[in-house]
């Protein structure tokens, strides 16, 4: 890791720790909201960015996580049991969703996962006995931590921050291990990866399952943050938004989701009550996606790489022409 990266990280960490002390209640809530989406899209980044599986069903896992915790809390089960169960359930469902990915790729897979999301959403909306239908589930409690109450927004923020950092470190560890390299090999060329002895069946399924588990944890945190869940935030549109967050930030860049989630949820939420701006945010966001794709198809975080590559090629061509001039001089 380079020196200026470490400095940047230190500044970011300091900001994340200190900032909530100076923010009002709603600001703290918004930061927590952002962290939860960072956590969810981090998982999607593994599936999409590192393993190359085009998944448009991530919000379904997010919703499964949220509903699992909410339903278990209503049944009197502790959050600390509900959350791991939510992650486990998402992991298993993710494994199952991975099976179509063994047969079809790219856009077929995108629509298969999108269809899966529709199905999950229909269950959330129609099965009132389980999910409360469109009325949703009210008064989802927040967890306590070793005797501490996390009911206020500020302590809950620090709790979510802690979970996000731990999950991020786990992901980083995974990506640096041979497993992580296998995921990128799968993305870059599945047939070559297979002939190098990588079990592409297992890795495709795992890419979905681990990504889904991250969404499950994020969903559990989300249910306790907003304390009221209904089907709307887990619809297909939300999955598409999460996909765009990953793509805008930069798929396959570890910090891509941090940036993507800020643009995808924080800015629109922040501007929600500004008249004249709020209704134009989504059209502008859509247009920004189009422009970004045309100018920078690898996402915002590819900008430094792009500049570096440009400079390198300019230097190389300068060196070439200098060499050519020198050769000419010798001939003459």
């Amino acid at each position, binding site marked *: 890791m380079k020196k200026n990266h470490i400095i940047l990280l230190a500044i970011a960490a300091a900001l994340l720790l200190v900032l909530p002390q100076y923010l009002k209640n709603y600001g703290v809530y918004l930061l927590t909201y952002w962290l939860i989406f960072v956590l969810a899209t981090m998982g999607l980044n593994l599936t999409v960015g590192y393993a190359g599986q*085009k998944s448009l069903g991530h919000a379904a896992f997010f919703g499964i996580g949220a509903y699992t915790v909410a339903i278990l809390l209503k049944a009197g089960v502790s959050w600390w049991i509900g959350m791991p169960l939510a992650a486990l359930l998402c992991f298993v469902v993710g494994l199952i969703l991975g099976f179509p990915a063994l047969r079809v790729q790219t856009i077929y897979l995108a629509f298969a996962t999108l269809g899966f999301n529709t199905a999950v959403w229909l269950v959330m909306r129609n099965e009132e006995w389980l999910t409360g239908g469109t009325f949703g589930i009210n008064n989802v409690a927040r967890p306590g931590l070793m005797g501490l109450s996390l009911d206020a927004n500020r302590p809950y923020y620090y709790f979510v921050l802690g979970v996000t950092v731990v999950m991020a470190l786990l992901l980083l560890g995974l990506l640096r291990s041979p497993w992580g390299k296998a995921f990128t090999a799968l993305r870059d060329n599945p047939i070559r990866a297979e002939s190098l002895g990588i079990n592409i069946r297992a890795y495709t399924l795992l890419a979905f399952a681990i990504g889904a588990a991250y969404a499950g944890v994020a969903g559990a945190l989300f249910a306790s943050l907003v304390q009221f869940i209904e089907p709307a935030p887990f619809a297909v549109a939300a999955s598409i938004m999460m996909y765009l967050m990953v793509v805008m930030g930069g798929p396959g860049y570890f910090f891509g989701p941090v940036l993507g989630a800020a643009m995808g949820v924080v800015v629109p939420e922040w501007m929600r009550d500004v008249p004249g701006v709020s209704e*134009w945010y989504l059209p502008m966001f859509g247009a920004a996606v189009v422009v970004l794709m045309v100018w920078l*198809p690898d996402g915002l975080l590819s900008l430094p790489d792009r500049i570096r590559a440009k400079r390198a090629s300019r230097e190389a061509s300068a060196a070439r022409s200098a060499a050519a001039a020198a050769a000419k001089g010798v001939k003459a």
Partner: protein
Amino acid sequence: MTDFFQLFFSGLATGSIYALAALGFTLLWQAAGTINFAQGEFVMLPAFMMLGFMAMGAPLLVAFLLACLVSVVVLGWAFKKSIVDPLLRFGMMPIVVATIGLSIAMRNGVRAGFSAEAHPFPSLFGDALFKVAGVTVTAADIGTLVFALLIVVGTQAFLAKTVTGRAMQAVAQNTESASVLGINVPRMIFYTFAINAVLACAAALLVTPTYLAKFDMGESLGTKAFFAAIIGGFNNSRGALLGGLIVGVSENLAAAYISPAYKDAVALVIFMVVILFKPQGLLGKKEERKV
């Protein structure tokens, strides 16, 4: 049993509209490797254009022709020039993402700039009812089915019988050999985008009387058109028709006999079964994997 035939028939009418949108989808895919995620919005926008032209006093058919013209320029030419052309060399997914962005921009742009309400839209065929052998059918259903089938069959005939159409097919099959044979490849690809825009306009003309003109009317239409295209076979334009009709009919029947709440899952279930067992679609040819 008459119920069944009634449902079956109105399902065919809906399905033929899905087929129009799905046909545009497959044509774009074949000729330009483009997956248009904004296909539903490509139907929504002409609906509002027609409403606009009619508000200025044009009769429905004139408004339709004007909307076709504007669509060919905006949804055909400008779409191809500004989004597809620069992105095509990066492969399929950047275009998918860009058209997702485009669909969000169009949908919410209409909502913010025009209206969030549903607007009524006149039907081309009136609302007469007919009784054929005990089965009640509406003039709108018959008109929609006939009109949509004529357009689909007309497009097929154009592709198969005319020199231009055959040149377009040649481009779709093998761009390099087509250009070696002296076919103007960029122009043929533009024609494909133009045809897609006109098909979207026709779909708008037929679907809006029942769906009403609303900013989010394209959302489910686009997805169903895609499902229909895959079910029928993505690399075969006859597949779009078959897929559209299958989706329309089975949706209608499932809503009546199984559960209206899960109607939207029907296309999805058929789609999943098809891609798991015959990923190339019912009428499609198999494509080999390349290293």
